[in-house]
């Protein structure tokens, strides 16, 4: 794929795009990316119609587009789709246990909701690594997810509620 395209095949659409195959929320998907710098966020939303990850700052500041890439939270806007060949992507649809989502609703952690998918993914990752985090750890883990509505207190309450529910669910 690194050779310059020559001959009749060069004119066809197949060789002017980069085919990327990856798993998104458990399903195998393929995307044809027409520039090497296309972000995973653009591919998810604009090519695949998967709008769980939100597009806000496109510079890795706000965390609205947070997804798990091979299990680690990353900003989808800063990942080139072509870097995801053969890799596992989980958006808010596939990454978040039910108790986390329910806790956000119960504790009023959602206002406009734009930051919520990214926060849910970040919280799911935190609780997978640390089942009962203290406030300082929660604040550190969510430092890359901006919310301009809630003042964060309700979000931190929701993390504690989710942690308690998930602890109760464990045998």
């Amino acid at each position, binding site marked *: 794929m690194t050779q310059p395209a020559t001959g009749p095949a060069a004119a066809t659409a197949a060789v002017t795009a*980069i085919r990327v195959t990856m798993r998104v929320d458990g399903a195998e998907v393929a995307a044809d990316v027409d520039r090497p*710098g296309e*972000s995973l966020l653009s591919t998810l939303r604009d090519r695949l119609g998967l709008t769980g990850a939100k597009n806000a700052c496109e510079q*890795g500041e706000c*965390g609205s587009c947070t997804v798990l890439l091979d299990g*680690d939270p990353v900003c989808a806007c*800063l*990942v*080139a789709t072509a870097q995801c060949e053969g890799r596992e992507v989980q958006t808010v649809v596939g990454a978040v246990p039910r108790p986390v989502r329910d806790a956000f609703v119960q504790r009023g952690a959602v206002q406009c909701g734009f930051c919520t998918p990214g926060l849910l993914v970040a919280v799911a990752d935190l609780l997978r690594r640390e089942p009962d985090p203290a406030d300082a750890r929660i604040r550190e883990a969510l430092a890359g997810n901006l919310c301009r509505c809630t003042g964060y207190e309700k979000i931190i309450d929701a993390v504690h509620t989710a942690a308690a529910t998930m602890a109760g669910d464990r045998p």
Partner: protein
Amino acid sequence: MSTAAPARPAFHRPAAVDEAVRLLAEHPEAVPVAGGTDLMVAVNYRLARPEAMLDLTGVAELREWADEGDAVRIGSGVPYARITAELAAVLPGLAAAARTVGSPQIRNRGTLGGNLATASPAGDGHPPLLATGATVEIASAAGARRVPIGEFFLGPKRSALRPGELVTAVTVPKAAGPQQFLKVGTRNAMVIAVCSFALALDPAARPIDDVRGTADYRRHALAVCAARALRRVWAAAHERSPR
């Protein structure tokens, strides 16, 4: 005879350093990318529109670190999150700096190699590397070379890295004593440094007890003298109107 084919978007995925530098020599237009935390911002904002990219995240040897006895050799593609989690005991200054980079999402992707290649004066990795006398390893199709960190930075966003070269590793001496990293910004998280400071203390030389003073007294007096001397040279260097 034949007309030029339309530019084809290319995304090169080398699996080894040899292959990466060969591809870079063959395709000098290809922009190297690892975590993408700087490059992708430029791409998203149309400040850069690379027609080809060279992905370093598939090069396993760049994503490993190795204990070399009195130093640690860190592959240029080891993300900050791993430096913080795995190297804090032996490289406390660098680990402290890594912990202040961006957010968890950024630290999962951003790398020391990218920090060096970008050579921004705000790069959080630079002060501890300078304070500890690290060595940068660079590879190209012509071979490998090692550059002392003090000779690596040539100016804001300028480094000793030449076209066709990649940063492959940084060798950082293990801490011989306490280390500090301090960074000033508008808040604690997600901050690009206004300024930052790293200090590595090598306390190997120990004061002695003798007839002119005890070791304790000498330690105390040295601390007073060191603080006073640093304040005075700093004041002298930054005096607005010299007498």
